[in-house]
């Protein structure tokens, strides 16, 4: 719209010959009528001109003033190629970009498949994961080969609206979808009540021909809006599928509705045969109720994941040459210094500069107690500053924060199609084809036996065998389980793990950081030359700074480290390095014994040794405390009949001490990562094994296990190679994981049994003409509702 021709106030075109102006922002602005003039003058008079400023920003974004929705969309899409804007939602790593897109208009698995195929053919796209449960598409493309806007346009071309995922967008979409379903439901509901009432009247035989015809016309009047308006989603889906040369469950549904409506319509107009208007309206009503419930279930499943991002504020206070200034969070870059007031959420990851702070990290870990942080410690986006204002230096922003990582993982997990879901998709596609073939055969058969019944029997077959329940059976249960686990601080990275868990026979635990807290203290020390103690400590501190093992922690605090050269870290053994031309080693006894094979420990329970090539110079006893819930967890394992094994790199004495107090079945100590892997492989011959361990040191073992769990906090979360990450630091979360997996499996089995059983029984009955369209419809609807409500049970809070 050209500004010169439009009213400054209401944006409507100015009629010819009108010349009215009002001075706003020191300029004469054109008005279209005296009304606008009066309003604009009042606004200026009352000093409210900021409204015009604010509004102009709003206009460029909102669709309110551009009625041609699509034109606006095209423009918006091109804007997404802007690097600055992409920073918000695109993750780029070595020329590979990935983003989550929110897609509007997806209603079933077939839609997901269609989008997957369409994008798969698009040049430059490397990977597409479509999640019909959350209506999201996760797409990875080669930066430079294609643009985000052309990906979005490709999705538009097949009739879905797609935009990069932003929280508010998705919620608004859901709300719009929900409202549209409610409206369609309302129309179908009212119409079905009316048509049912009329149908009851028609059951009486003594009704005269004129009244009967009148009733038919009344029913037609009520059914028409249902057919035209309420049934649209089914027709659209069916059409989409057919256009992509595929089939989905909306195809038989649409066929049934179209047949029933037009046959009834024909009967009404020609005054012959039967009418089934009440079938059309009630079928639509029940199907829509099912879809509506499914929508609610999906909404429930994603709100949890989405809620995380809501917490992040949009504005932060940044330190500049002119003092503290409010800036947009999206403009923050690493090394900016920002200030957070008490009670405010932290917008980015960073390092604390203030002396001390209390942070509530409940959003990230589920742990509700505030955590004390000291200068130099990492503070995560999404946590809430509790007490005093704090200052921090930004380290990670946008998509790179821990919180964004968690959300990404949750999205990915919901986006994966576990084998069981893939199978169900596959089955229902063939099922639809089979239904259509059987329906045609039925029609032919009845055409020769009793032509007047042929149409209604086919109708019953189409309706009764709709594989709605079948296609809902697994996805609803899986998303229910994933969301349930997320709520209790258990992050699933591989949805498949839910299927693997119930078969597990052996549980392997790492000791340090898994059964114990991994918080070490030095309890005893021995020095060859007591006078050299402080020098030994400084060397130890220097060496341990290059170790990632938790046992290294207390040494770093012991003394100020000396300068070090030629550092070499051998995971599972220790660290070697040169100080002032002398080579030192710190680590396990075995590590030091490589230099001095005859060496024995001067202190019985020592576990960290410092030596030169000449001999041992110091040793320490460093110990760790058990996790509070380790005993409960192991007792539970025993009760469930799991074989429990401890795999540790620690010495035998210390490993045995822990194993005895926890009553583990098997203990393997003094293991290097390779040894752990070998033992695990051997154990796998006897049955599936789950490994519970530490994300970085045990990475190969975790990858080998049938299922793996890590405790992660902080930056290692995203890299750790496990299937499941426990965020709340509780060992007993494993118990909940097992329970949920078992329940999910049970629910999926129940759903499949029900869906297949029901369809199997009803099909022959319908083919033989024993089931009328009305009963077929009632049965089909009940079947879907049973499956959905069964899956929703997984979302319910369980008592622990």
């Amino acid at each position, binding site marked *: 719209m050209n500004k010169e021709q439009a009213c400054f*106030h*209401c*944006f*409507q*075109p*100015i*009629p*010819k*010959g*009108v010349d009215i102006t009002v001075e706003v922002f020191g300029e004469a602005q054109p008005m*279209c*009528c*005296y*009304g*606008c*003039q*009066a*309003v604009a*003058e*009042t*606004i200026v*008079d*009352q000093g*409210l001109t900021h*409204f015009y400023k604010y*509004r102009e920003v709003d206009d460029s974004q*909102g*669709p*309110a*003033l*551009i*009625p041609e*929705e699509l034109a606006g969309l095209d423009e918006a899409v091109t804007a997404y190629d802007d690097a600055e804007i992409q920073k918000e939602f695109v993750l780029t790593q070595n020329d590979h970009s990935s983003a989550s897109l929110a897609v509007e208009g997806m209603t079933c698995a077939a839609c997901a498949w269609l989008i997957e195929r369409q994008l798969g053919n698009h040049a430059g796209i490397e990977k597409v994961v479509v999640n019909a449960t959350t209506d999201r598409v996760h797409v990875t493309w080669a930066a430079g080969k294609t643009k985000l806007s052309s990906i979005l346009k490709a999705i538009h071309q097949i009739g879905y609206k797609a935009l990069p995922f932003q929280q508010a967008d998705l919620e608004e979409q859901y709300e*719009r979808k929900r*409202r549209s379903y409610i409206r369609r439901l309302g129309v179908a509901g009212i119409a079905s009540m009316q048509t049912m009432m009329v149908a009851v009247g028609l059951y009486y035989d003594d009704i005269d021909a004129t009244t009967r015809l009148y009733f038919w016309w009344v029913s037609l009047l009520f059914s028409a809006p249902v057919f035209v308006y309420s049934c649209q989603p089914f027709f659209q889906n069916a059409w989409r599928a057919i256009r992509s040369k595929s089939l989905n469950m909306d195809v038989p549904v649409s066929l049934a509705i179209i047949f029933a409506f037009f046959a009834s319509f024909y009967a009404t107009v020609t005054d012959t045969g039967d009418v089934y208007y009440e079938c059309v309206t009630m079928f639509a009503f029940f199907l829509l109720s099912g879809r509506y419930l499914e929508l609610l279930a999906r909404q429930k499943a994603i709100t949890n994941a989405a809620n995380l991002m809501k917490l992040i504020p949009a504005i932060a206070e940044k330190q500049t040459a002119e003092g503290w200034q409010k800036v947009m969070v999206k403009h923050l870059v690493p090394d900016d210094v920002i200030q957070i007031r008490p009670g405010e959420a932290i917008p980015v990851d960073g390092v604390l500069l203030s002396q001390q702070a209390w942070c509530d990290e409940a959003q990230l870990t589920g742990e509700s107690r505030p955590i004390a942080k000291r200068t130099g410690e990492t503070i995560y986006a999404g946590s809430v500053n509790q007490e005093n204002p704090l200052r921090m230096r930004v380290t990670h922003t946008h998509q790179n924060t821990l919180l964004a990582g968690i959300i990404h993982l949750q999205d990915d997990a919901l986006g994966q199609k576990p084998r069981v879901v893939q199978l169900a998709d596959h089955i229902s596609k063939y099922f639809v084809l089979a239904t259509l073939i059987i329906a045609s055969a039925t029609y032919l058969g009845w055409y020769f036996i009793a032509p007047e019944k042929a149409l209604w029997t086919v109708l019953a077959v189409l309706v009764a065998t709709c594989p709605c329940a079948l296609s809902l059976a697994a996805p609803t249960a899986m998303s229910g389980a994933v969301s349930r686990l997320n709520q209790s601080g258990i992050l699933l990275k591989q949805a498949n793990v839910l299927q693997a868990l119930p078969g597990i026979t052996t549980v392997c635990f790492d000791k340090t950081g898994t059964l114990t807290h991994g918080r070490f203290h030095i309890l005893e020390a021995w020095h060859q030359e007591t006078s050299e103690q402080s020098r030994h400590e400084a060397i130890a501190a220097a060496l341990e700074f290059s170790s990632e093992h938790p046992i290294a922690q207390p040494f770093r605090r012991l003394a100020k480290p000396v300068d070090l050269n030629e550092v070499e870290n051998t995971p599972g053994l220790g660290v070697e390095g040169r100080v002032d031309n002398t080579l030192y080693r710190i680590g396990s006894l075995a590590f030091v014994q490589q230099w001095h094979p005859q060496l024995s420990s001067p202190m019985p329970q020592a576990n960290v040794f410092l030596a030169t090539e000449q001999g041992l110079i110091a040793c320490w006893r460093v110990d760790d405390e058990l996790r509070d819930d380790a005993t409960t967890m192991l007792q539970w394992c025993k009760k469930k009949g799991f074989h429990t094994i401890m795999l540790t790199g620690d010495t035998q004495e210390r490993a045995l001490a822990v194993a005895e107090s926890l009553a583990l079945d098997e203990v393997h100590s003094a293991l290097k990562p390779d040894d752990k892997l070998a033992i695990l492989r051997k154990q796998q011959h006897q049955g599936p094994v789950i490994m519970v361990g530490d994300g970085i040191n045990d990475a190969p073992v975790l990858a080998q296990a049938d299922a793996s769990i890590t405790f992660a906090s902080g930056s290692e979360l995203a890299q750790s190679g496990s299937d499941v990450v426990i965020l709340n630091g509780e060992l007993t979360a494993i118990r909940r994981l097992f329970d949920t997996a078992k329940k999910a499996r049970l629910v999926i089995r129940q759903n499949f049994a029900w869906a297949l059983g029901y369809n199997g029984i009803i099909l022959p009955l319908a083919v033989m003409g024993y089931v009328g369209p009305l009963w077929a419809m009632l049965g089909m609807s009940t079947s879907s509702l049973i499956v959905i409500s069964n899956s929703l049970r997984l979302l319910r809070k369980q008592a622990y």
Partner: protein
Amino acid sequence: MNPVDFWAAILMGLAGSGHCIAMCGGLAGAMGVQQSKPRILLYNVGRISSYMLAGALVGSAFFGLAQLQPQLFIWMRIFAGVMMLLLAAYLLRITAALLWLERIGAILWRRLKPLTRKYNRNGKSHHVYLAGMLWGWLPCGLVYSALSWAALTASPTSGALFMLLFGLGTLPSMLFLGMVSHTLVSLLKSTKFRWFSSAILATYGVATITIGLMQLR
């Protein structure tokens, strides 16, 4: 008042919704949307009160005139039909046809405007009501064509009733402004909606003129 007029009144209000939102919606935004719902309602009740007052005024004026000159009544009907057609054109922004009326209204408004400072929407409850009443006198082609119909009733009570119904027609768009979705707002403001409502109004106008012309014969 016959039921056809009843519908005409509500329809005029509803058809003008897009116009109302474009013109006064901005003001609602500027003055703070965070008003509580009862206050917004009170404000609108004030606005409608003014409409009713105006309706009663023109109603009684034409009640007197109709006593003197019955033929005038039929001419008035034709005039109302023409007003309806002009309104349709006005909503489409095709012509500035109703602008001369607004200009007259604007003279009245200039006298009332100083009062708007005294009674603003953020004051006490009765101030909110009074501010709403003042708003009712804003120069608006929509209101004036409604008034031409109110005049046609040639009775103070029916005139007021007609304007009440007209006001109720505009109420949803003004009351739920901010509550309704962007989609609805852009629908109401869209060219299609304006053409649609203008077409209905024009049909009404033509029908009214036809009846008037038949009565003349």
